[in-house]
């Protein structure tokens, strides 16, 4: 049983990294949004599995939050925003798909090297989880850097937060405070973002962050 439970946890965490990669090369907003929902779904499953094998019932709550909030509510809401703004065109990526994938692979390798080396004494499950979590965090960062569109930057940020939740649940017995706070922060982040998106729309008629760059703070 020990072996199987480890394998399943490993597989779920690995799938999260895989979905992160899929997000990286996705250049349509709707597809990206669907992938984010999938990302959150995988996360919810992974957290629920952790709750089961660690025998930590409070983690089920975290899984539920991830499922309801990140896999359903946010994607639906963002979907509606995209429709209302009429921006379901292609995403312009700053870096091409090829280089982005290569960079992503490099980051994952980096995460593995760093985390596996320093956690040699921790239990294997926590080790793998942390390494995967760091990969997801770094891929989320990469996505935020390579996209110009505000919506996809936000999705990048949220998948980054998913990585953090994975890390927090992998750390056995970590107090609930942090999990709730992560969910809470996502909520607030979403409200802030929502407000901003509408304000950006109001002012610029576009959600392309590049348009913002025209209004450089340094006015001449």
């Amino acid at each position, binding site marked *: 049983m020990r072996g199987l439970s480890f394998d399943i946890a490993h597989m779920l965490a690995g799938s999260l990294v895989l979905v992160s990669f899929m997000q990286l090369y996705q250049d349509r907003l709707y597809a990206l949004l669907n992938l984010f929902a999938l990302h959150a779904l995988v996360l919810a499953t992974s957290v629920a599995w952790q709750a089961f094998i660690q025998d930590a019932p409070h983690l089920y709550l975290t899984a539920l939050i991830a499922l309801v909030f990140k896999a359903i509510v946010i994607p639906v809401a963002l979907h509606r925003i995209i429709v209302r703004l009429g921006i379901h065109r292609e995403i312009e990526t700053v870096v091409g798909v090829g280089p982005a994938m290569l960079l992503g692979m490099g980051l994952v390798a980096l995460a593995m090297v760093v985390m596996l080396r*320093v956690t040699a*004494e921790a239990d294997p499950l926590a080790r793998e989880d942390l390494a995967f979590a760091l990969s997801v965090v770094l891929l989320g960062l990469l996505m935020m850097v390579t996209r110009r569109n505000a919506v996809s930057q936000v999705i990048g940020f949220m998948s980054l937060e998913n990585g953090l939740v994975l890390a927090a649940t992998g750390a056995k017995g970590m*107090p609930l405070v*942090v999990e709730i706070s992560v969910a809470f922060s996502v909520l607030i982040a979403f409200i802030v973002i929502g407000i901003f998106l509408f304000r*950006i729309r109001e002012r610029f008629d576009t959600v392309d962050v590049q348009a913002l760059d025209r*209004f450089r703070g340094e006015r001449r």
Partner: protein
Amino acid sequence: MTFDALAGVLLIPALAACLLAALPGYRLTSRLNVLATFLTFATAVSLFVVEPGSGPYLLVDDLNKVFIVLTTFVSFTTSVFSASYIGHEIKIGRLKPTYVRFYHAMYQVLMFGMNLALIANNIGLMWVAIEMATLTTVLMVGIYRTHEALEAAWKYFILGSVGIALALFGTILVYMAARPVIGEGVDAMVWTVLVTRAAKFDPALLNVAFVFLLLGYGTKVGLAPLHAWLPDAHAEGPTPISAVLSGLLLNVALYALLRFKMLLALNPAAIAPGPLMVTMGLISCVFAAFMLYRRRDIKRMFAYSSIEHMGIIVFAFGMGGPLANFAGLLHMTMHSLTKSAIFFAVGHIAQVKGTQKIADMGGLTVTNPVLGWGLVLGVVAIAGLPPMGIFMSEFLVVSSTFARQPVLVIILVFGILVALGGLFLRLNTIAFGEPRGPTAPADASYVPMFAHLAIVFVAGIYMPPALVTGFQNVARLLG
């Protein structure tokens, strides 16, 4: 929980935030805002008289007492300045009454977040508090809803969130390092417990954790090259918020960093956090000093000056040792007071001139003598000229570290001198020469500005022995 001063510094802002969100009318709410911040300040001072015990969630020791009193004091004086500043903004129609209500409520939420971050005894709770403070300032930076304000708020939000996310990862790693030693559960995140057992933690995990924490909280401190959000956020938000950001929020992030540095210092096998901090501090100082020369926006210029000073402070703490820590602590206090005083002056100047562009200001000492000379005094202080307090603290930073690392200190002094040149070049245009732009008298409150400058001036000449011993205790604590 019994009511003590620790609960007070949290409850007063929390209650005030609810009240201010509900009450209409600018006059009433701005006064209530001042009253609430004053009460918080008074409660914070009472920590020196009666020291409440530390619990599993809240903690008070010599280190955070200094930070809390400084934070509550500057937020009190800023709220006085804010009352007259916001009054003017309403008069010219830049802010709508609904936004003012929102602004005051957010101001108190920000106070709550910063105070919680300072007294949290739990690394998770501290992270939540800093995140909360960050998000409130994001909302406040965007409050004018202009193009620039939105861009600044967006940039701040994205960079701030990334920083805060990295800090959370670091926090989780610290928990991972502590768990095998302390055991599962809340105890492995409590400062007072962590500190006693730190020597047994896995050093490799602690090292990686510190790198994440340095990058994460370092973004919030505004260390180069993670500083990109800072000038925009300072320039585009309301000026009271610039004063609070520069004078306080940067300190709060620095406080978090110092706590983790103390933790690492207790583990003999972990890397020394000093060199990393010294490097980032030096880079920030020299980089920001050069950036001062190309600034055309007055608030942006002083934002870069904040980066420079945070660099000096981080350098001092990175060098470590009782003397350098003392100097860093003093410099931090002086910088908070001086920089907020400068922003008080700058806020009114920008209102008089109707612009923040340096090129459109001139001859302030002739047209608005009080504001003009106030700014001159502030810049003299921030540039580190005697007899002001910053001269003292910079001198201490340099003299306490010169014997150990002469080369590094020469780089630091170079940065300080370059910054001095940049500041005076611009000050010359703003304060002296032909008057330019509108010259209407300002309806300003000068008291907060001159109160800060007076403290900085006195500190440059005479430091009360009680204060010196207090700072020395903290410096020893920092190791």
